[in-house]
């Protein structure tokens, strides 16, 4: 990969987020190097989605700073426009534009560029549909004609439409069948290996965490703790202990060891 590895894709410094009198994040720090797949975990209401929204510029924190791909995030839309096409986000239920077909959804960002021939855009839309494992006829369908899992894949196809450098995934494998979920994991790995893609994914899928994540960020006590799975497994915090040593976790990690991971 020819992308410089010394500068981080994402840097979060001292972020404080409050909703009314409730503090969600209190001085949160996070650095994600380029090419890393980072899994974000945490209990309900610990602000996993809020963290993603803060990084991509949708949610202004009470204090702190975020740098995304070398660009300071300004939370007024200007940094997002400057970074257009260089990062993508898969929202929880896909957030597809309901008035457009899947193919047109994928082409929205391409069309904004204004310089791509329609034939190439059509080809690329079909390609992305194929890439995320949707049947070819899904391209001309409207989001309301798709199941929840298919909408998720279509949302990913749209997030990948301009081959971004960073993708944010909000619970990407929730609602997918196990086969689809592991195919999705492999897809993320392939894309990372080929493109040097940086991936930040909120997930509760222990299989995904064990299989593809280089590091894991745990949101506990309004702060973030990062480390590899092995490091976190040794961390004394009770929630982390519970998370990584519960029965589901043991099963997931056993599979990885058998699979040679």
């Amino acid at each position, binding site marked *: 990969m020819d992308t410089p590895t010394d500068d981080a894709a994402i840097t979060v410094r001292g972020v404080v987020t409050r909703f009314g009198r409730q503090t969600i994040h209190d001085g949160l720090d996070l650095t994600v190097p380029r090419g890393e797949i980072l899994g974000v975990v945490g209990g309900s209401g610990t602000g996993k989605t809020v963290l993603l929204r803060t990084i991509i510029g949708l949610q202004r924190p009470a204090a702190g700073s975020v740098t995304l791909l070398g660009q300071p995030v300004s939370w007024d839309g200007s940094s997002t426009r400057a970074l257009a096409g260089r990062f993508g986000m898969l929202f929880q239920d896909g957030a597809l534009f*309901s008035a457009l077909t899947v193919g047109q959804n994928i082409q929205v960002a391409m069309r904004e560029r204004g310089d791509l021939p329609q034939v190439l855009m059509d080809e690329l839309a*079909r390609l992305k549909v194929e890439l995320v494992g949707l049947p070819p006829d899904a391209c001309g369908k409207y989001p309301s004609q798709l199941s929840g899992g298919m909408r998720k894949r279509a949302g990913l196809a749209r997030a990948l439409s301009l081959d971004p450098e960073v993708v944010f995934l909000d619970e990407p494998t929730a609602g997918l069948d196990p086969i689809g979920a592991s195919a999705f994991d492999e897809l993320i790995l392939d*894309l990372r290996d080929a493109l040097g893609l940086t991936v930040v994914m909120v997930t509760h899928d222990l299989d995904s965490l064990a299989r593809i994540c280089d590091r894991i960020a745990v949101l506990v006590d309004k702060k973030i703790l990062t480390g590899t799975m092995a490091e976190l497994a040794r961390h004394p915090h009770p929630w982390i202990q519970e998370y990584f040593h519960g029965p589901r976790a043991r099963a997931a990690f056993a599979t990885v060891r058998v699979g040679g991971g």
Partner: protein
Amino acid sequence: MRQRSDDPMGDTLSMLERDGALYLRLTGRWTLEVARTADRQLREVAERAVPRVVVDASGLAALDSAGAWAIRRTVARLDARGVAVDLTGLPERFHAIFAKVRLPDPSTEVAPPDRNPILALLENCGRAVEHGARVGRALLGFLGFALVNLAGALVNPRRLRVTAIIAQIEATGVNAIPIVGLLCFLVGIVLAYMGALQLERFGATILTVNLVGVSVLREIGILLTAIIVAGRSGSAFAAQIGTMKVNQEVDALETMGLSTMDVLVLPRLIAMMIALPALTVFGDAMGLLGGAVVALFLLDLSVGQFITQLVGAVDIWDFGTGLIKAPVFAVVIALVGCYDGLKVSGSAESVGRYTTQAVVESIFLVIVLNAGFAVAFAELGI
């Protein structure tokens, strides 16, 4: 093949035709940018009449799915035309993405196909007529179903949800008082004013009171109130129930053994049947008040003269024919709103669509039924 190796790094595609074979050398970052700039060139290469093509990909520095697609597409097209293609030197780390980029079926639709506008117009007309007929039949069915349930609930009053009914009366009736009052008052003023201007020519300005009295009580009061309520509450019914449908709240109700009809539709129907006649009486009063204001200040009538003239001009049946329509309109507005709300499915977008549809349908039906009542009353001589 190596004759252009002294080219600057920025060059991404170099070509050389020698000994009946075409040599392509790909270098640098093959991303969407290159897929765009080299698009035409690659399409030409794909159609080139050569027996053999050699692609050297060893110089690739980066490859994204668009770049991989551009290469894959060209190779596949050449292959399909019987040209021998050699793809060599693809760096190991790009094998995965290259393998991922399979050839999608080029015939699948991306956007809905364009249609002949005249045919589309005819088709839309046909669809709209058929849709209208279907909606009419379904609404009639829903009316029957609702009335059977209403009768059942009246026989067995434990099925009536009093709290919900009262809450709906407040929302559809009490909260609508200011807007209904103001609009009826203003229309009463306009009616009296326009009437007075015309009747003045015949020296019959006093008949303005008759005009306002009859038209407000028989038509304007009820029609205006029904239209306001259809816009306010018919849309609210559709939006509330539609949102519950999208959130699967309606499914949750049914799963718990509760009847959607009893919980959602009947309280709204009963509340509307109480609120709309009450609002109509209030609207009538405000319309007459508007007429009175014009009569007192513009026509210089005294309060006594106005009342005497009004009592002589209208009888109880003028008031009755207006009020008799109110429960009918109430049923139409409540049921159309609830019906369209229950029709919502899938996305949040359909909530908006059915809410609009509920308002249009209920106002349409109110005006059509009002015309029917006018003809019927005239024939009956009421």
